């Protein structure tokens, strides 16, 4: 059973460009969350998707947007990239309901130059 898979694993972008990161949740999971982990920091919650709707959002600007597809996979889009967007982007999936474990993927390393 594949866990949470993310792509690409590493990428380099230039300031001002746009990036799309992709996530496939663990089989059977319907809820996908995205986190940003800057170097030396803990992950910070960006947003969460459930039934193709954004259910919660953290303190991130509108340059960060997302989407969830009918098969529960998800995309994170970041527009107008800044140097400060360089980080590890983690996707997490879970099954809706109290007490269910949240599983994380290995992340996508984004470097903005």
């Amino acid at each position, binding site marked *: 059973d594949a866990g*949470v898979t993310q792509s690409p694993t590493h990428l380099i972008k230039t300031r001002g460009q746009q990036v799309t990161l992709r996530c496939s949740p663990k089989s059977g999971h319907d*809820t996908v*969350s995205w*986190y940003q982990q800057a170097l*030396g*920091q*803990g*992950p*910070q*919650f960006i947003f*969460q998707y459930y039934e193709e709707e954004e*259910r*919660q959002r*953290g303190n991130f600007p509108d340059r960060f947007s997302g989407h969830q597809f009918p098969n529960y996979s998800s995309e994170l889009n970041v527009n107008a990239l800044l140097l400060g967007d360089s980080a590890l982007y*983690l996707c*997490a999936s*879970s*099954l*809706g*309901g*109290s*007490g*269910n*474990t*949240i*599983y*994380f*993927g*290995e*992340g996508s390393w984004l470097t903005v130059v």
Partner: protein
Amino acid sequence: AQSVTQLDSQVPVFEEAPVELRCNYSSSVSVYLFWYVQYPNQGLQLLLKYLSGSTLVESINGFEAEFNKSQTSFHLRKPSVHISDTAEYFCAVSDARGGGSNYKLTFGKGTLLTVNP
């Protein structure tokens, strides 16, 4: 809103020694508590969680954590560490209202545990 403070950014210990990684949280509502581990160049793996019931929770690899509501703490302990325990450890909380364990996690900044031979 919740916040998490991990009091030590780095903890070096010798193999087979005991270790405690400290975590304090702040919240105006009841919370669920978690410890995640991150090995180099990997994602996060759940180590253990407290949702309700017994305040002492254990993992399969010998770690344990105790929820102390009065101290707002959830410290992680292991009586004897191995080289393979070297990793970054993150404490996290989520809102316990309405099935909140499935909602957003608020993480601390992490504690790097280095186990030396």
